[in-house]
């Protein structure tokens, strides 16, 4: 593995390899007072975030530090990015500064692909930490890790992804990864929030959440971004909530074992009722926790040599 740009680049074996490593790391670190492994000592990991993000950036930073990598954070407000430097020049600067791995979050779809194009020659790995509406592969991996914890093997598991599919990089990565892992994925959204051409994703699309609740092993809710609410994609937040919000009544219709996921940040009361968000069957904090281990596993698979052991 050289880069992680798309969840679609992972074979089932590669994805399971990362997930198994993640589980192993989690077990290794459990209860340890000093959460530090020497694996990536001397490696330089630069997170380069062109969009605000707390959970993803912190998660990568912690992951790198627990692996003993030197982690440097660059954010668009604090660097020359705000002076109008091109993405390519920033990339070349990071390469010259000695990066082994660049973790990038960018508002433009494909930005991670372009970075990989410019940095491959220098032998630098690129991890896509979210590019526009395209993908967020480590989110899909941490979601899969969380689902595996709760549900075991994901083969045949019935998972609904609900909400703004059109603009969601989390949805794109999850569809690809969950299909690779053999899950039975369906999308549930108003027709305005499903992209034209979704047929190629080879997953069924539905518009009626209530019809599916009793049949699900997991519900993955997506964030509805504020700017979408005023973009005419649906009449009002109220109507969205009535049709697609996971309220307590809907929650009660889910099978006992069903898990609820949300990539955060949540809009309580709109996308998800507070009581649902705080229920033990909701795995939202597990997602964050697993995020660190999954990202450690990704860095390990990208940066550590074959001979090195976790």
């Amino acid at each position, binding site marked *: 593995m050289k880069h992680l740009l798309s969840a679609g680049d992972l074979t089932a074996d590669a994805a399971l390899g990362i997930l198994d490593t993640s589980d192993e790391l989690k077990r290794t670190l459990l209860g340890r007072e000093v959460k530090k492994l020497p694996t990536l000592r001397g490696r330089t990991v630069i997170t380069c975030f062109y969009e605000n993000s707390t959970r993803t950036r912190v998660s990568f930073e912690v992951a790198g530090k627990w692996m003993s990598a030197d982690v440097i954070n660059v954010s668009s407000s604090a660097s020359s990015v705000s002076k109008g430097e*091109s993405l390519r020049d920033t990339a070349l600067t990071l390469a010259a500064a000695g990066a082994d791995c660049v973790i990038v979050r960018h508002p433009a779809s494909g930005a991670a692909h372009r970075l990989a194009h410019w940095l491959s020659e220098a032998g630098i790995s690129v991890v896509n930490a979210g590019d526009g509406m395209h993908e967020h592969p480590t989110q899909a991996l941490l979601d899969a890790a969380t689902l595996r914890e709760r549900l075991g093997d994901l083969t045949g598991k019935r998972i609904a992804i609900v909400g703004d599919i059109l603009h969601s990089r989390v949805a794109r990565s999850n569809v690809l990864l969950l299909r690779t892992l053999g899950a039975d994925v369906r999308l549930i959204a108003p027709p305005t929030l499903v992209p034209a051409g979704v047929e190629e994703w080879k997953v069924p699309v539905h518009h009626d959440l209530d019809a599916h609740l009793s049949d699900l092993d997991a519900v993955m809710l997506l964030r509805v971004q504020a700017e979408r609410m005023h973009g005419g994609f649906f009449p009002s937040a109220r109507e969205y909530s009535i049709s697609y919000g996971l309220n307590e009544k809907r929650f009660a219709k889910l099978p006992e074992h069903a898990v609820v996921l949300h990539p955060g940040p949540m809009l309580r009361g709109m996308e998800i009722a507070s009581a649902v968000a705080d229920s033990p069957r909701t795995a939202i904090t597990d997602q964050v926790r697993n995020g660190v281990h999954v990202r450690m596993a990704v860095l390990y698979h990208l940066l550590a040599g074959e001979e090195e052991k976790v």
Partner: protein
Amino acid sequence: MTLIRNVRPYGEGAPVDVRIEDGRIAEIGHSLTVPEGAEIIEGNGDVLLPGFVDLHTHLREPGREDTETIATGSAAAALGGYTAVFAMANTDPVADNAVIVEHVWRRGQEAGLVDVHPVGAVTVGLQGEKLAELGGMAGSAAGVRVFSDDGLCVHDPLIMRRALEYTKALGAVVAQHAEEPRLTVGAQAHEGAMAAKLGLTGWPAPAEESIIARDCLLAQHVGGRLHICHVSTAGSADVLRWAKNRTPDLAAKAGEAIISAEVCPHHLLLTDDRLADYDPVNKVNPPLRTESDAHALRRALADGTIDCVATDHAPHAVQDKDCEWSAARPGMLGLQTALSIVVETMVRPGLLDWRGVARVMSERPAQIAGLADHGRPLAAGKPANLVLVDADAEWTVRGAEFASIAANTPYEGMRLPGKVTTTILRGRVTAKDGVATEVKVSA
């Protein structure tokens, strides 16, 4: 005096010789005697066609001379077999007044490799709000007969109606960049499976088709002349076919078709499959569409629904292309590859013969723009605006070798059929064997 030996007009029959005198074809015949002191051009059995006419070129001067100048663009045009090009108005400053269009016209004359006809903006500053001084541009030394806000759609239906009406008095045509702006806010790629996969905001086909339908109705209502730029979808071809068949009487009364349309080589050959690696060299507006669109466009060009091929030659600097997709400027070079793409997509599959190539690359565009001296029959007495094509040659595209300053070709490394060997403007060679005639350009 010049004698072209051993060429096949329209690729038909046995090779003939063509004698050129005073910028005109003097004689066509077998084994003509070589006049005293005549320049001899060996045709080697090449196809002889009327010089190509491009209704849609961006020469970037004034404003972006770092990517193309009228001189370098003229050289690219000559090398591509063109004898006339129409330089789009979206320069900086915008060609929306007589001063700018006369400047462009004169710079083209100075370069002298191709007739550079400036396109005038339809509206002031391409803003779509107020008609530019169309009469002033038409009456200038540039004699503008094509008006377009290309790059932007004249989206206000009332402004478009007025433009179609007003230009009737000028004998001019309005060339529309058909793109409903409300349907293409933030659009980055053809709306379909590829855009869905890549997370790029879609550019839906109906955003083009609805404007074409609207403007065809308006043109037919007011009797104005409408030309549709860079038709890119199968649905657009359907709309055009319907509109052109709708009022044949009206068109006949006007003495010429009221509605015409062009297609770009890249929309005939390339599809949005190429977007997978997000390389902005493939970014263009309207966007690359699907295989079935490309095939529908080929059929529409073959059957005359689409009148002609235009390049939408759009030079861009490296920094405007070697960046993230959404930050990249749309457009690609086209002048030096157009013929080969037409050979690849139309001639080789049998959709067009060489007479058809003459029609779509020379005759129809010259008629649409009202050029009297281009796109004429290959016959004695006609202007010697000519191109020789080696139909069997193949070549490999290298953007850095093009005459353009910019090198943004999507065909880099591709092997293409058909090669322009000689271009002749009013009897004078402007390009030969891949070398454009040197130009003296004033500073």
